Structures are given as C-alpha cells and as structure tokens.
C-alpha cells in the first residue's frame, strides 16, 4: 500500500506540473545556463558592473577593495557617508556582511546597535580578502555599497532584516514570484532553508498569495502573526521589468532574481542565482513545469516567426498567462 500511495503522489504532483530537482537540473539549469557565464552571477561585483552598464537599478556601489594595499582607500570611499554595507563579492548565505547604520563619534554603529572602530572594519575587510567567507576559501574582493532601507510596507509582515522578492526568469520571461520574509529562526536572513518564509506573489497584480515555511503551507507570519496574503506590493511592474531585463544582463536563461524595495530608490537588484530553489512552487501553490512549458512553447512559436520580444512585451505576456485566481 505504501508503494501504491507513492505512485499516486507521483501522479498528482506531475499532473500539477510540480518541478523536481532532476527536471530543474536537466531541462533548465543545464540547458539554459552556460557554465562560462556563472562567474557573472557568483561574483556580486561582476553582476553589479554588468547591471550598471545595462542601466538596471542596483544598490549604488561606493567602492571595491581587492588588495590589502587598497584598504588605505577606505577613508576616501567612506568620506561623507554615514551608512553603508560591506560584503564579500563571492560570499554565500549572508556571511561576512557588515551593515553600518550610523557614525558615532569617531566610530561606527552597526544595524544591531554595536559600536565598532575603524580598525575593526579594516580587519573585517582583510578577512574578506583572504577568503574567509568565500566558498572555496579562495581570495575574494570586498564590496562597499549603498545600504538598502526596506519600504515601511514590509515592517508589518516582517520580523527583522530585509525582505526580498525572488522572481524566476526563463529566457527573459518572469514565470513565478515570491516574497521572502526573514523570521526569528532565520536570523534576519531571507533564505528559505534557513527558516525564512516565502510568500507567493501574483504575477499580474503583485498581490501576495499564501506562504510557505519549511515545506509547509502557512497563512500567518510565525513571529508577527499577521496574515501574509492579500498585501499589494508597490511598483510591481517595476519589479517585473527589472527581473525580465536580467536575461540580457547575464545571458543565463534560467535564473532566480533577488530584488529589494528601497524606500527611496524603489526596486533594486540584489543578486542573481543560477540554481533557484523549488519551494517557490509551494508558496504559489502552482507547478513551475506548466509555466515553463508554456513559455517554451511561446518561444518556439516566436522563433518560427523569426521575431523576439522586448522586455515590456515579455512581462505583458507572462502577466496575461500566469495571473493567479485571487486567493480564497
């Protein structure tokens, strides 16, 4: 009976078009993402440079430090700035990121209120350079950039940290979106497998749907107990256009685009991911395969006609096709 139940589950999942890891790797990551383009998404500095030259909004880059010698430049980079972020270019999981919210006398104040000295910042940069936070332990570069202030809208449904928006983009067509909210468990990070919650977003309207937390469906934020569904995200078309434009930016055909909503600057791109996770499906209560197949059919049609669509046309196409029924 156990085996029979599994076959039933298999059938139902595949009828819903749920994408598994094997399919994602074989049909999308391996097919659309060229290995030689990976450095563009792995190195945040490269991503940013590409984005700037393509005219795509990113948090402003104040400076890059790539050798110990260049640490001397830190003073000139920070001159006149009271808040900024220092992060490793190839860090993973949010390690090694230093967020300075204010200056205090001759010292700096981090986002959590800790006071640190200039020397401590220099030591942090030195650690980043030696590769303490980079994945393989190889030498890295330190990136100093604009500190994002999340839009006050998110304050009510988020615990702390910066919520971000993830949109999966196939060949320039946004196929699924999710709002990621940090929780107490995730330690302020917006990473789903660290315990952040994901909330599905309707592609057409930008209103939130239900949520997912640790592979389960949820309706309320576990820390704030507010309903996560039915929130209208501001400037939704801005996010969609931004995400769709990332295909031209990096050349990778299947990516997850992580964006934030800054209080002053609007939607900004944080980073790109060449192997986006699959839990976004639970948050949207929809399978990715159905949507990617629809986009692939559309692409084949366009190819036979010999035309390609602009960013706006692509966004309109997917918004028409993948509009969700309002959540019950």
């Amino acid at each position: 009976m156990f085996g029979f139940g599994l076959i039933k589950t298999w059938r139902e999942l595949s009828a819903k078009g749920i994408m598994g890891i094997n399919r994602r790797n074989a049909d999308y990551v391996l097919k659309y993402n060229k290995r030689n383009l990976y450095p563009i998404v792995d190195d945040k500095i490269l991503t940013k440079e590409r984005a700037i030259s393509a005219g795509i909004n990113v948090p402003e880059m104040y400076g890059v430090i790539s050798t110990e010698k260049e640490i001397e430049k830190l003073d000139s980079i920070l001159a006149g700035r009271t808040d900024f972020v220092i992060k490793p270019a190839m860090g993973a999981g949010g390690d090694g990121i230093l967020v300075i919210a204010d200056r205090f006398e001759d010292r700096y104040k981090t986002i959590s209120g800790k006071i640190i000295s200039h020397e401590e910042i220099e030591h942090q940069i030195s650690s980043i350079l030696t590769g303490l936070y980079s994945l393989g332990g190889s030498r890295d570069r330190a990136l100093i950039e604009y500190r994002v202030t999340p839009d006050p809208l998110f304050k009510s449904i988020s615990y702390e940290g910066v919520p971000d928006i993830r949109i999966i983009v196939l060949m320039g067509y946004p196929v699924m979106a999710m709002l990621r909210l940090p929780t107490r468990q995730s330690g302020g990070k917006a990473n789903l497998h660290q315990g952040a919650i994901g909330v599905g977003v309707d592609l057409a309207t930008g209103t939130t749907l239900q949520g997912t937390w640790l592979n389960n469906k949820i309706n309320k934020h576990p820390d704030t107990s507010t309903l996560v569904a039915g929130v209208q995200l501001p400037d939704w078309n801005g996010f969609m256009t931004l995400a769709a434009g990332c295909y031209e930016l990096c050349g990778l055909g299947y990516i997850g685009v992580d964006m934030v909503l800054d209080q002053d600057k609007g939607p900004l791109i944080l980073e790109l991911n060449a192997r986006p996770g699959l839990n976004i499906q639970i948050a949207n209560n929809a399978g990715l395969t159905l949507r990617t197949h629809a986009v692939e059919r559309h692409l084949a049609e366009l190819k036979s006609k010999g035309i390609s669509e602009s960013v706006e046309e692509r966004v309109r196409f997917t918004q028409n096709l993948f509009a969700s029924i309002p959540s019950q």
Partner: protein
Amino acid sequence: MRSLTLHLKILIALCVIIGVSVTAYQIFVLGIPVSEDETDNLWNIDAKVEFQANPREPVKLHMFVPPLNQDYVSLNESFISNNYGVSVNHNEDNRRVTWSARRASGKQTLYYRLVMTKRYSGEQIKAKGSIYRESLPIEGAEKIAAEALLAPIRQHSADVETFISETIKRVNNTSDDNIRLLLGGDTSSERKAAVIDLLLSIAHVPMQRLHTIRLEADVQQSPELWLRSFNGEKWLYFNPQSGEQGLPKDRMIWWFGDEPLVSLDGGSKVAVTFALNNSEMNAIRLAKLSNENTAEGFLDYSLYGLPLQTQQTYQIMIMIPLGVMVILILRNLGGLQTLGTFTPVLIALAFRETQLGFGIILFTIITTLGLSLRSYLEHLKLQMLPRLSVVLTFVVVLIAVISLFSHKLGLERGLSVALFPMVILTMTIERLSITWEERGGNHAFKVAVGTLFAAALSHYLMSIPELAYFIFTFPAVLLIMVGFMLAMGRYRGYRLTELFRFKAFLKD
C-alpha cells in the same frame, strides 16, 4: 535538443549492447565460469607400463596415448622413465609415445601421467571420415551365414545408424546358429567386433575400432572397446556388447584402430595398468591453467593477465564504479543528501580497512570531535589552510590515541586505521563544517547520516565477493553500468524525498 537525445540514446544502446555481448561471449563461447565457487573435476590419469627386458638387447616400446583433440584438454602431461629416450608421434587420429633404450635388464617400469579437464572453449573440430569401403574377403559357409544374417538386418533398418545397431544386436544374440558359426566359439568383445566389422564390410559400411578409458576414480580397469562409424556428418559411437549408441560423458578415447595398446621389442611380459583419481579445482584457476596449455589464450587479454599484486588492486578499483552507481541511485532517484558524490565512496573504501561496524563508530567519534574542534577554531578566525592543517593534525592524534587505547584494551581492530582513511576523515570534517555553516546544524546532521548510510550500503555491495569476482572477470559489465549512468543523466522524474517534500500540494 532532439538530435542530442537521439545521440544519447544511441550511445546508451551501444554501451549496453557491447557490454552484454562481450559478457555473453565470455560466458557462453569462452566458457568462463560465472561464479568463483564453480569447481571442475581435474583428472589425474596414470598409465603404468611394466615389462621384463631381455638382457643385451635394445628395448623399444610403443604405447598409444590420448589424442587430446576431444572434449578434454591436457593441463600437464609427463613421461616418467629412467634412462629411456622419449618421443611422441602423431599419426592420423592417434598419438603414440615411443620409449627406447639401448640396454636394459630386469623388470622395467615406465609411467605416463596425464592431468586433464573438460575443455573450456567449445570449439568443435569438423568431423571427417569415409562413408564407403570395400568388402572384406569372405568364403564358404561363413559367406552363407553372413548373407543369411544381413537379409533381416537390411529389412529392419532404415539408415546407417539403425543398420549398425541392428547388426550389433544380432551379433550379440549367441543363440543364433549363424552367429555361433561366425564367432567360432569366441565370445570376447574383440571377436564380436571382428564379426560386426565383417558384416558391415559386406554392406560397405565403414567401421573403426576405438579404445576408451572410463573416468572413474579408484577402479581397476583396462581399455574398453567401442566402435564408431561416420554417417557423412558426424561420428556415431556404438558399444559392441550392448549395441548402445553414443559415447557416455565419462569415457575418454585413448586410441583408434585395431592395434594393441602397447607393442614391445626386446622384452616380454608387458602389462599396462591404469590408475585414475580426480580432484576439484577452483574453476577460474583451472581455466587459467588450461589456458596456458592451449594456444587460444582467451584469458590473456583479461585482467587475469596482470601480475597478482596488481590484480588485487584492480579487484578493489573495479568495484568503485559500482559504489558510485549506488550513490547515484540514492541521490538522484532517492533524493538522499550526501557530501558530494565521491566522499561516500571514499568512506566506503576506508571501511574496507576498518570493517563496517567499527568503521562507523570510528567515523562518528572522530567526526564529532573534529567538528567541535573546527567550530572552536572558527572563533579564532583562522584562514582555511592553517585551519585545515590543525584539523588534520588533530585527526592524526585522535586516531593514534584511539589505536593506543584499543590496543591496551586488547581490541586489535583499533590499529587497522591506515593512512588512507585519515585523509578522508579530515576532508569529511572540513566539508561537513562548511555545510554546517551554510545550511545549519540540522542539515549537516542529515547530510552526515546520509553519507554514512550511502557509504555503508556501497561498502556492503562492493565487498560481496561474488559480485567482485563477476565484475573483475567480466569487466564489460562496466559498460552496461555506464549505459545506466548515461540514462540517469537525463532522468527528469521526482526524487523519492520530493514526494514527501511537496506533500503540501496535495492537502487541499
């Protein structure tokens, strides 16, 4: 994309077909045993020749020895004699040894020893023979008796085969007056064979005598007379006593023809006694031995052609693909999370040296302690290389301490940790701690348990001796595995764990 799929399908089909056909060729045509436990009879045949040599006269003794172009193959053949010259000649189907000495006196003993077994390669020699011969001269009463006998035989037979067996049946019916006349009161096999020969020659059916030895241990025996005739396609064998057709499996042909087994010049009272015994031998060793004695050399290009020590290494190495395939199945079909692809296989190899149970305990203890050291070092904010060096040193010290303790406690197992597992342990600790940092302790624990499980399973499979023998003997099996792995490369279905992960979708 489509052409790529076709390309892949052809490649997979090619791998599987080549793998299957090479293996099938090895098993069915070369007859290489499928399992190591398969044993075969090894026959040791001694023919002892004794005679009294005439003084002051040169001695020359001929004896037939088995022709060895049959279902049996000689592994070793020796002619044991003192001061005798030995030569072996072939003539027609027979082989004959000649022992000669210029001077010998008194009682002489010569030995012929043959060690042989069933032939492994089933290559059949094309049979040829004549299907017609002239009648033997016959006259008077005997001629009338023979013709009287042949009439009903012709009536009762349809072809050469039935004709011969009918003849033998009649000749063995000694109450028949005609038969009694032809036999002349002598009912020995030889006499009967002569009468059968005579009758068949009148019908122009060729017939040949042959002498066989029964492969049966510790039984007194002398060569048994059989008859054979060629029917145009193959030789038909008949027992002259019973008319029974077909040579039983346990008979081995010693020589053909009417001549006696031995002929002696310069001596008298010659007697030959046969002694047989059999022993069992590991089939693959036997195949190797017979390989050395035949020109075919079918094992020359197998892994058995390597020096023994290299063979032992390869016996371990050739199992690695199997281990990798287990990991592949567990990961891509099962969805088990492990540390990379090769770490579990390497740990499984390390288990070879530590034994499974002890290996798991050792692995758990050392990894736990190593991880706690690693997390302590984390606070010191050390760079990767110095940090790894410290962890490696710590692992060495830990293993030394465990070995010392277990030695003092009388557990010799503890000493079995060798160089190889140590490096693997250090690597595991490092990778596990990276996983810990990136994905949290829970996930790291899951991955560690998954890795141990995968390692234990592949260790178990890799150490099944039958499987190891099979893959080592039939390395083409690896191609079949490659075909499977290629197919897995395009597998798009769900992993087993995903069925549980996405359960939320079904709760509506």
